[in-house]
């Protein structure tokens, strides 16, 4: 059963499709990519995630061939692709603006790349029809790009970039121009198409939810460096830094000093006059070392009375309540002014909510709920 899980990154025998080897890219004095190494495997759906200006688009443009690394090499299937121009690479890109040719019909847009390869007419027609079917665009084939909707244009761009059956498909913020509902539908459609075609996808996005939904692995980037590369659940559950914890989802960060308390267990002193917190951590910390405790709001329980068996419990009062329908986020102010967020599912009717503004409440969590981070 275990062997069926798709995880080539854990297999030392697996050969990566793409290898970044100590790649640095500078634009004048600005370093966009800073000595970065990364392996991406075949059939992966890999997400590059980060704020704007973190270098993720530069990574993608280097893969497409529009930029060349200042230092280091990029290997595709073991071959150094730095000297290969974009039109000779087995890599296709779906542009953020879609870049559909406005003077050509949908059909001709999709056929554009195939025509450059001098594909025989019959094969070409078959391939275009296949792409139209895959993206459900059959009835729009004769229209021009400005005569279809944004979601349809997005699918044309996808069909066009997939038509040449590239080894690697690059997607630059593919869903950025779509509204939320359509975006969610399209995410699943993308995953479906990726699975059907077996193509390796590399997606660039600043939307962490999108990256988590579609990707098999996520790379979180900041200032030209990779902060963490892992599966979505590991990125969320065990971030390796405050930056990653903070970038992905909502998190409470408590700063303090760690004291070892036996096997993988630490006591954290975090505020004068407050009881120390307990957290377990696999990484070793020296006594008195400054550290950060990252706790997800949904892992913090909120109650009116002090829970009897809780290892970590602190008292505060409700400062604010954000009602999200299915969930409520309580902003609880501690005596020293720190705000801790706690999230609960609204299983009861709102009128029967147990606490409201200014109510004193207890926050509690287990020793394993929080992640202890050095930086």
């Amino acid at each position, binding site marked *: 059963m275990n062997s069926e899980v798709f995880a080539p990154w854990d297999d030392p025998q697996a050969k990566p499709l793409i290898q970044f080897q100590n790649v640095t890219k500078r634009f004048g004095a600005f370093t966009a990519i800073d000595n970065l190494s990364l392996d991406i495997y075949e059939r992966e759906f890999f997400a590059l995630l980060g704020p704007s200006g973190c270098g993720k688009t530069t990574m993608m443009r280097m893969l*497409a061939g529009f930029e060349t690394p200042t230092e280091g090499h990029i290997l595709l299937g073991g071959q150094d692709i730095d000297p290969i121009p974009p039109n000779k690479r087995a890599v296709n890109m779906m542009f953020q603006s879609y870049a559909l040719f406005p003077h050509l019909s949908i059909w001709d847009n999709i056929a554009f790349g195939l025509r*450059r390869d001098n594909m025989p007419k019959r094969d070409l027609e078959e391939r275009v029809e296949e792409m139209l079917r895959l993206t459900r665009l059959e009835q729009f084939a004769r229209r021009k790009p400005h005569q279809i909707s944004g979601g349809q244009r997005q699918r044309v761009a996808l069909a066009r970039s997939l038509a*040449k059956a590239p080894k690697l498909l690059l997607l630059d913020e593919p869903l950025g121009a779509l509204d939320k509902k359509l975006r969610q539908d399209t995410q699943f459609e993308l995953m479906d198409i990726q699975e059907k075609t077996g193509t390796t996808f590399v997606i660039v996005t600043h939307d962490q939810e999108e990256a988590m939904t579609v990707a098999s692995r996520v790379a979180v980037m900041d200032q030209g460096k990779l902060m963490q590369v892992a599966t979505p659940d590991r990125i969320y559950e065990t971030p390796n830094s405050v930056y990653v914890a903070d970038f992905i989802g909502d998190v409470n960060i408590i700063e303090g000093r760690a004291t070892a308390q036996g096997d993988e267990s630490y006591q954290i002193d975090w505020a004068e006059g407050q009881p120390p917190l307990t957290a377990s951590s696999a990484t070793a910390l020296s006594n008195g070392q400054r550290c950060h405790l990252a706790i997800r709001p949904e892992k913090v329980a909120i109650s009116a009375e002090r829970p009897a068996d809780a290892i970590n419990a602190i008292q505060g009062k409700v400062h604010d309540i954000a009602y999200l329908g299915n969930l409520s986020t309580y902003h609880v102010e501690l005596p020293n002014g720190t705000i801790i967020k706690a999230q609960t599912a609204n299983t009861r009717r709102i009128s029967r909510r147990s606490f409201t503004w200014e109510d004193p409440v207890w926050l509690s969590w287990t020793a394993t709920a929080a992640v202890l981070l050095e930086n």
Partner: protein
Amino acid sequence: MRRAVLIAIPYVWLLALFLVPFFIVLKISLSDTALAIPPYTPTLDFSEGWTGIKNFFSQLDLENFVWLTEDDLYWKAYLSSVKIALISTILTLIVGYPIAYAMARAPEEWRPTFMMLVILPFWTSFLIRVYAWMGILSNEGYLNQLLLWTGIISTPLTILNTNTAVYIGIVYTYLPFMILPIYSSLERMDGSLIEAAEDLGCSRLQAFWLVTIPLSRPGIIAGCFLVMIPVIGEFVIPSLLGGSGTLMIGKVLWEEFFSNRDWPVASAVAVVLLLILVVPIVLFQRNQQKQTEAEK
């Protein structure tokens, strides 16, 4: 009420400044030449009342238009004008497109400067610039001096007073009309389209032919019409730079008016010229309309 007035203003303007003068010219073209002031008859005299008006209309005829078909000077001049206009439009396109392309591809902070350089010549008198070309192109002119000095030629070239000089003058004068519309269509083009074409397997040159040229087509068409329409009736350039062999309808028109003082025939020439120009003007309007519709 206010709306009606607002709409009426441009119509009154067009009526007073375009339609009325046109009808005056049309009327003269139907008159006969006379030794008088103005040099044609009949003139409308309201003092005689209804019979005067009836008399006036009975004297109008198409004689001058018939005359245009009898003397082969006129149709040869029209044909030669159209030919010169077509050739010089193509030459202007060949010279103008690379300039517009370079401007559109230049760094953004440089574009206003280039734009300025294109427009700058308009700020000096057109006539002075044409005279400057006479100084450059004449037998003892700067061009011949330069070519003799570098040893490329041993005897001076005769350029001034030939059709070559006319083409040089027209291309020089009308270049901005070609550059600006092409530049504006190239500048608006999304750069990622070229990258997409390359990504899909085009070489640089293929991407240019398959994407850049088709997308700048509205600009090319607009530029060509903006050059061709005024060049057909051009008078100053052929009369100053051209020679006796240069036959253009603008020159014929001028001579009829000022040398022969035959206003009726000159007016007939002008009316026919206008009819010839209506075709490209309508095509031009249609192109512009299609473009604005595509942009919506």
